[in-house]
């Protein structure tokens, strides 16, 4: 059912964990599937451009959810925001040599987590936010409200 690449990521996830004092955090969840993804980014300037210098993830979810979150961290590490936001679900799926159709939403979740982490960084630093990112954020917030209701007890314990 899963490709070797998916299983490799699952076996040995890359960039696993939490970044203390992260510059941006993206927390998303797809309740239909019971997946919750947290992405943490560090940002630094290089040659006058901001890049994602470090990125880590934590995921509650199935094999595909863990693999896609790990894959996306690898794909955008060292990239500018513009480059990172161009990574779509199709790119993630291709990098994994494919996902079962029923697991496609996991790759969507990974892109949403990334967008949220970048949004979080931009808004914290009072920076202009592209319209598409604002729209994406609104959608994610709505979904997260559902998520928080359902995971209240667990997420309460997650306060830093």
């Amino acid at each position, binding site marked *: 059912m*899963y490709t070797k690449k998916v*299983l490799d990521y*699952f*076996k040995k*996830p890359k960039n*696993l964990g*939490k970044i203390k004092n992260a510059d941006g955090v993206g*927390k998303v969840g797809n309740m*239909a*599937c*019971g*997946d*919750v*993804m*947290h992405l943490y980014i560090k940002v630094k300037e290089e040659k006058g451009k901001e890049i994602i210098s470090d990125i880590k993830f*934590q*995921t*509650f*979810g*199935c*094999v*595909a*959810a*863990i693999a896609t979150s790990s894959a996306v961290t690898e794909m955008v590490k060292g990239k500018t925001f513009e480059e990172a936001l161009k990574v779509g679900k199709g790119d993630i799926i291709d990098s994994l040599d494919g996902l079962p159709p*029923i*697991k496609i*939403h996991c790759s969507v979740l990974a892109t949403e987590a990334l967008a949220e982490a970048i949004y979080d960084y931009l808004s914290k630093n009072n920076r202009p936010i592209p319209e598409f990112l604002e729209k994406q954020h609104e959608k994610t917030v709505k979904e997260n409200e559902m998520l928080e209701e*359902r*995971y209240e007890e*667990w*997420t309460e*314990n*997650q*306060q*830093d």
Partner: protein
Amino acid sequence: MKKQEKKKMIYMDYAATTPVDKKVVKAMLPYFTEKYGNTSSIHTMGTIANTVVNRVREEIANYISCQINEVYFTSSATESNNWALKCVASANKDKGNKIIISSIEHDCVLNSAEWLSKNGFNVEHAPVDEFGSVKLDELEKMMTKDTILVSVMHSNNEIGTIQPIEEIGKICKKKGILFHTDASQSFGKMPINVQKLNIDLLTASSHKIYGPKGVGLLYIKNGVKIDTFIHGGGHERGKRSSTVNVPAIVGFGKALEICIKEMYDEKLRLTNLRDKIIKNVLKNIPDSHLNGHPTKRLPNNIDIRFDFIEGEALMMELDMNGIEVSTVSACSSPKLQASHVLLSCGVEEKYAQGTIRITLGRYTKESEVKYLLEVLPKAVQKLRKISPMNIHNSE
């Protein structure tokens, strides 16, 4: 290319299916190449086939204490359940249009009932308690005058809870309502007496008891009104057409014979292993919970949920360590929904995600159980490290 060494796997998913016993295969073989007759033919070859099929019918009738002519062979438990629900409903619609099933039935009963509800029948789901036992008082209250059929499984495929079938049968008899039970997981594992239990229709399957896939049965008590499901040349006394799968039925019979012979000892052995696993896991893995009833459960079923992680990931982690179990987490289900069985037991959706089902069987060794108990805590711990939900990760 380097030849890859095949990893030895430990199979602990006997509720999904079982390997065919070698003695069963041996019994089946002559019926492919030597005794290949059609049971409908009246020449010698046909008579040989017919005789052996009826011998198996008799064996089954003896096991469940019914008449020989009350046992009908089908292609699967799914077919039997479809037949029982849809065709009892259609044949009895002059009496009423209400059908009651338990809320934790297998999909083939649930979806047959759903189809009936789209076709004019009133289907109600009887609730279960936290252990997955049907609430008898509520079930009785649901049985109105227009109820024609009650269908409650003998034991549940996910959580292993054995239902109060005798009590349900008694109530149905008192009220004059037909009672069907899907005994796919119980058949061959414990004594079943359809007369004592007041069962009118019973479903069973061969591949759950070390027999071949592709054959099941429906017991239909004489006098029960039921329409034909598969129309054709009039096999199975006109009730279920389709050329009779003689080798598979012979295998089913041999498989049952072995199960009956070993039933008492096997039940004891598996119950011990089951309880050892449950006790060990609950004690040694924090935030783990048993699903289903602690004692009124199948001797081979262990269904445990772990907080903060997801079942499919745990299943795959165990698979990578050479242990095959199963999961019913939302993420691995076609509809992306949490297990309807756990939700019916009152388990909240967020807690229902991290469940795995371990089911033992004839070839499960004590050493394999020991290995499982070594691997499982590590697997849970590994996934909890990945999870943002784990409260211990926030420090």
